[in-house]
């Protein structure tokens, strides 16, 4: 599809790349700068359904100092920069809307310091979470945020990533203790630290986590680790109705049962997963649960309690497994749900969306959404980390039928507005990118002004990932 | 600084009687570390949310004056006199600040509370009526006449609103002034102790029957009770209202009136007990009386403490009723006596339904409810709601001021509850 990639963007305000800049960068990085079409295409969209916007060049720094030099150079030449981790983002975060330089951090993949006693690590931004957990094997510790895709820690910090374990271990917001950031003019700052509690000055870590590359380039992160649980158990329970499943989740959390993962898959999704991963579960709204505990007995206690709650909510099938292989099979099936859904309609592309509502309104929101979707001919699957009221829809659309695309967007917009009206947010974890900017505006009102001003203060020339998150 | 605000003359000027006065730099002031943990235990802070109406704020004002940084004005006096002297802050303070002593020292400097007319009336009452039992009898008789003749009802219709409230608050003067049958009343049955009894001014004027009940209970439990004729008011009201010198005179007189050779001086009024336990401090600068004052103070016990320590002799008839208990401030905070009254209630078999905030002031606070009716009313309303919520038919409050206030509150806020003294209840149970 290379010939379909425009070499000059079609968005307004796209600047003209300065050859002098390319020369400077090449002098700095040698062959770690690429202008080949294939490499640029790879850095043009991430995993979104939104159209691709390739950068003019891609650079591959290997140290924070190199990042500083790159940023300084781009800043001098007033060239936009787009930080790039693993490119697994879903809302067009890495699309170079105005062209410019894509800063690919994947080569900054060193694990700089592991402190098992203090349960924290400092890593370069390009380390992926799977790489980190592999490195931690044998320490009894793990990094808990698991967004499904093998994203980089830097990217996860930039998007405030969440994942299946958020209900118990939190999201990147809880996990990031400190960052090293290169600002738009090349200044290097450090935020936070290793102390578990700090009231020193402003908590700028909170500002950069979730800033989606619009305020600076994260080059290093210090993150918190957790102890691996002594005992783990997984369960699936299928329900007659989505409401039954959601009520089970609500009661479980209210009783303080420290469940580690709770995922909801609707009947469409279960069908896909059954076929793709050979699960043989009933085709009905199903909860996938994982329990962590200090002993087999405590895990068994948790399972019993949830079984009882589920029984009161119309549960059909209830299966549980302690065997690691069996558990791994269950969770792989869950994590492969995206591909499973795609497999339902070969040739289709998947549009993934993501909202979050207060858990008390979750069943209602899902019910109304499903009713809205029922009229459509599109195949739509639902999956979510319902422990925090977050769920995703996957719309399967034919890329060659614009009407289908429009319909999916229309249905999605209604769902987001529905979620906002219920006191929710337009994105549970995928972030804003540029796909959700208009919803951000609807959601935030006056605070958006403040965000704009912060963006303008830290990046007065709007060079850091321009056109994302906040309109300036 | 870029402020463009010019200072203006203060609206409320200094009070003439406070000119040239300053608070003393007493050592108790040092203990306050300004942590603020007392704030939410203070009833007046909870109502006003103002720092100057909190224990910490009041200590700060006293300290600022003592250090020469603040002139004493009517406003300062108002802040210090809005304090109930309930000493809940002392219970809460992790540093052990003796707030009561600081406040008393401050009030000694300020003199009696209120605008000039009030000050004069209070001073008159405290100096020229309280110390003299026979004058109290006269006042009691006048009150009885005023209340029973219908004059009070007439006054209530004719007087302006704010005075009307104060008339309504006036307790019903008892049918008689307490007069013991003899100065020494023997124990009933085997004698286990010899105690002296403070008959008290408020108890004598308004609750003679409770005094009699108290003496009965003491005698039934083997006490020989000495009720010295020469005794008089303990002076608590005087100390709390800026009349420290007359309070000292009253303390001396009581120290002289009570025999040195009784082991215990029993009182059934929490306010009196707290005041008398501090006689050592009150007379600390008096070389002639200091030691005797300490000896006196060390022997003072509230009737509930004493009886619990002695142990009830008879097994009382269990009373199958539900009561709730109001911790009088000067018993719970002033003397740290909370468990003993409850133990005695348990011994007579009543079911105790604890009210929320049982140790929060009801707003009586001596003559506070007359001087600060709005604050007293606000606190009383909360207190009556707390009592209502327990569902109990009886509230036990072992202090005359609290009893008067709660009786008024039951009527004012429509809470059908009987107000009793602990000794009253014990007497009824035959303890």
């Amino acid at each position, binding site marked *: 599809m290379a010939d379909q990639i425009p070499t000059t963007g079609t968005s307004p305000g796209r600047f003209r790349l300065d050859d002098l800049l390319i020369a400077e960068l090449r002098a700095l990085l040698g062959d770690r700068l690429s202008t080949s079409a294939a490499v640029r295409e790879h850095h043009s969209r991430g995993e979104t359904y939104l159209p691709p916007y390739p950068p003019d060049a891609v650079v591959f720094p290997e140290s924070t100092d190199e990042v500083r030099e790159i940023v300084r150079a781009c800043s001098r030449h007033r060239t936009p920069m787009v930080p790039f981790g693993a490119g697994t983002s879903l809302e067009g975060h890495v699309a170079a809307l105005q062209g410019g330089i894509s800063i690919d951090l994947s080569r900054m993949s060193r694990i700089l310091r592991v402190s098992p006693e203090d349960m924290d690590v400092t890593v370069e931004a390009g380390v992926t979470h799977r790489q980190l957990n592999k490195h931690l094997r044998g320490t009894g510790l793990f990094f808990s945020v698991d967004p499904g895709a093998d994203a980089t820690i830097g990217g996860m910090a930039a998007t405030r990533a969440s994942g299946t374990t958020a209900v118990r271990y939190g999201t990147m917001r809880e996990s990031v203790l400190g960052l090293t950031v290169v600002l738009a003019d090349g200044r290097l700052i450090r935020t936070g630290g290793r*102390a578990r*509690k700090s009231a020193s000055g402003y908590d700028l870590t909170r500002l950069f986590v979730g800033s989606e590359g619009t*305020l600076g380039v994260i080059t290093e992160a210090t993150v918190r680790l957790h102890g691996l649980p002594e005992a783990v158990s997984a369960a699936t329970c299928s329900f007659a109705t989505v409401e039954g499943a959601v009520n089970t989740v609500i009661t479980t959390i209210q009783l303080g049962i420290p469940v580690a993962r709770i995922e909801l898959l609707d009947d469409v999704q279960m069908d896909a997963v059954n076929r793709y991963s050979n699960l043989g579960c009933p085709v009905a709204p199903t909860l996938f649960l994982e329990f962590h505990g200090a002993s087999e007995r405590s895990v068994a206690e948790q399972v019993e309690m949830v079984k009882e709650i589920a029984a009161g909510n119309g549960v059909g099938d209830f299966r549980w497994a302690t065997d690691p292989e069996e558990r791994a099979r269950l969770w792989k099936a869950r994590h492969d749900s995206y591909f499973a859904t795609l497999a339902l309609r070969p040739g289709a592309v998947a549009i993934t969306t993501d909202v979050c509502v207060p858990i008390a309104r979750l069943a209602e929101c899902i019910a109304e959404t499903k009713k809205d979707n029922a009229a459509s001919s599109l195949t739509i699957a639902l999956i979510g980390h319902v422990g925090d009221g977050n769920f995703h829809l996957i719309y399967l659309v034919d890329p060659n039928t614009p009407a289908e695309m429009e319909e999916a967007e229309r249905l999605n917009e209604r769902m987001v507005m529905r979620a906002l009206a219920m006191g929710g947010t337009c994105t549970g974890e995928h972030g804003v990118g540029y796909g959700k900017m208009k919803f951000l505006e609807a959601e935030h009102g006056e*605070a958006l002004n403040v965000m704009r001003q912060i963006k303008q203060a830290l990046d007065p020339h709007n060079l850091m990932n321009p056109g994302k998150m906040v309109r300036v | 600084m870029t402020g463009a605000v010019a200072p203006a003359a203060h609206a409320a000027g200094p009070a003439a009687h406070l000119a040239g006065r300053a608070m003393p730099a007493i050592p108790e002031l040092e203990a306050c570390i300004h942590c603020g943990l007392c704030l939410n235990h203070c009833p007046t802070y909870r109502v006003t949310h103002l*720092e100057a109406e909190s224990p910490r704020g009041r200590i700060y004002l006293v300290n600022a004056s003592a250090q020469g940084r603040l002139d004493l004005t009517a406003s300062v006096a108002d802040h210090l006199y809005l304090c109930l002297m309930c000493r809940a802050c002392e219970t809460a303070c992790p540093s052990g600040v003796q707030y009561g002593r600081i406040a008393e020292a401050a009030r000694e400097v300020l003199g009696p509370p209120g605008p000039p007319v009030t000050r004069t009336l209070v001073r008159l009452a405290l100096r020229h009526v309280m110390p003299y039992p026979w004058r109290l009898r006269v006042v009691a008789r006048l009150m009885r006449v005023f209340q029973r003749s219908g004059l009070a009802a007439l006054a209530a219709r004719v007087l302006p609103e704010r005075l009307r409230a104060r008339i309504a608050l006036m307790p019903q003067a008892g049918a008689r002034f307490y007069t013991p049958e003899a100065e020494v009343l023997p124990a009933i049955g085997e004698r286990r102790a010899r105690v002296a009894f403070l008959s008290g001014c408020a108890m004598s004027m308004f609750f003679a029957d409770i005094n009699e009940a108290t003496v009965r209970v003491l005698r039934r439990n083997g006490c020989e009770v000495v009720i010295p004729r020469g005794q008089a008011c303990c002076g608590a009201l005087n100390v709390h209202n800026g009349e420290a010198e007359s309070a000292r005179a009253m303390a001396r007189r009581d120290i002289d009136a009570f025999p040195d050779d009784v082991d215990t001086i029993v009182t059934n009024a929490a306010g009196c007990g707290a005041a008398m336990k501090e006689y050592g401090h009150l007379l600390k600068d008096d070389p002639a009386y200091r030691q005797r004052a300490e000896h006196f103070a060390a022997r003072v016990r509230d009737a509930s403490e004493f009886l619990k320590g002695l142990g009830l002799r008879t097994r009382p008839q269990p009373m199958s009723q539900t009561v709730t208990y109001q911790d009088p401030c000067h018993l719970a905070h002033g003397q740290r006596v909370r468990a003993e009254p409850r133990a005695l209630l348990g011994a007579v078999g009543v079911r105790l339904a604890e009210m929320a905030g049982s140790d929060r002031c009801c707003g009586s606070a001596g003559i506070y409810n007359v001087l600060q009716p709005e604050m007293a009313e606000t606190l009383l309303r909360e207190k009556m709601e707390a009592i209502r919520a327990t569902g109990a038919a009886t509230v036990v409050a072992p202090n005359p001021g609290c009893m008067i206030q709660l009786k008024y509150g039951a009527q004012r806020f429509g809470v059908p509850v009987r107000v009793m003294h602990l000794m009253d209840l014990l007497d009824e149970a035959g303890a």
Partner: protein
Amino acid sequence: MDRAALIRRLQAIVGEPYVLHRPDDLTVYEQDALMVARHKPDLVVLPDTTQQVSDVVKAAREAGLPIVARGAGTGLAGGAIPERGGVVLAMTRMTRLLDLDLASRIAVVEPGMVNAELTAMLAAHGLFYAPDPGSQVASTIGGNVANNSGGPHCLAYGVTGNNVVGLEVVLADGTVTWLGGRAMDAPGYDLTGIMVGSEGTFGIVTKVVVRLLARREAVRTLLAIYDRMDVACEAVSAVIGAGIVPEALEILDGITMRAVNQTLHAGFPEDAEAALLIEVEGLSESVPVLIERIEVICRAQGARRIQTAATAEERLNLWKGRKQAYGALGKLGRRTMMLDVCVPRSRLPEIMRRVLEAGRRWNVGVANFFHAGDGNLHPTPFFDFDDTSPEYARVIGLTEDIMRACVELGGTITGEHGIGLEKREYLGWMFNDADIAAMKQVKQVFDPADALNPDKVFPTGRSVHGAPRGKALAVPRA
């Protein structure tokens, strides 16, 4: 605008009784719990609604006066002390619980709500608000937000920043805006996150959306007595190293225990050097198992005696000693000055050694009690002179040595009390010029005129320590 006109305008907004202007009324607001500095405000205003706050802010700005928000004034870093005068905005009247959403487990409260009273209100629903600073019976939620307050139970549940979901804020120009909302993880920049801990310098918080947690079924508390402090610290690491994260993990040293015994008759041994207080919550099956494991670990580390509390009363008794520790220390000397520093937990034994060493070097007694699980220490020097004495320099020397040691060990100069006035000159020990410049840029966005709680957090070149009292008060009041 002259003072009289401003007073009239403010009275029109909040009502006459709530604009304080007499000398005595202003004097009581010149300090919070930091006793080494005091400055009188020009006026004190007590608003009752968000609209009033907005109008007062506008009026103050028009008069060119700075604005210092204040909760209960229990802050230990001087964050509520109006160093430049101006208007103190006391939020203590705004105490309402506005909304309680049990299903979503959030509550919306006004900033003057007292921390402990919030949790008391939630008890009937089996819920609680987790950050429990030592001041909780007095401190307000708004104040907790300003300082990112912690407390013993933050080990498991996080600090204020982890428990606040949204804020309604009045900005420096009087604009009212919501940051965040009712759901965790609102998209966009985490303005709620940076507002928490901004010490009143970004805006005035007028509503707080807090996250509520469910009370667990079972709770067990354990007290382990040790003969040596370093051994006790190692026991802490052993417990956490075993993968156990208790709800609370506190240590008191021998000096503290003896002081607490005096005030509270708490029953601590008179000759032990350290006591570990550990609390575990969870399901009724897992908790006894966990406590047993902790007991084994503590004994293996050489605990002299272990006491477990099972009933609520026993548990409260064990905690009373810890919670009252600061006040009890008041008995040790005429003055105390509680420090607040934090190190990575693994460096606890080392920092304790250096604290004791510093105490010996400067010849000042130091009591210690702390949130061992988080590595957050409160070394508390006690002494008999006051801060105007030349001896006071020893206390400052001690303080600086301890802070320096913490930074060297990878920690921070304030774990939970905030920078305020007290530590602003030391911000540069934690962050370099570039870091501080970035912080200032953010401050500039919120408050370009530097009107909100000026001269806090950032260095000014004027220390509250060491400078004779006279100098601090001589700040020109134009």
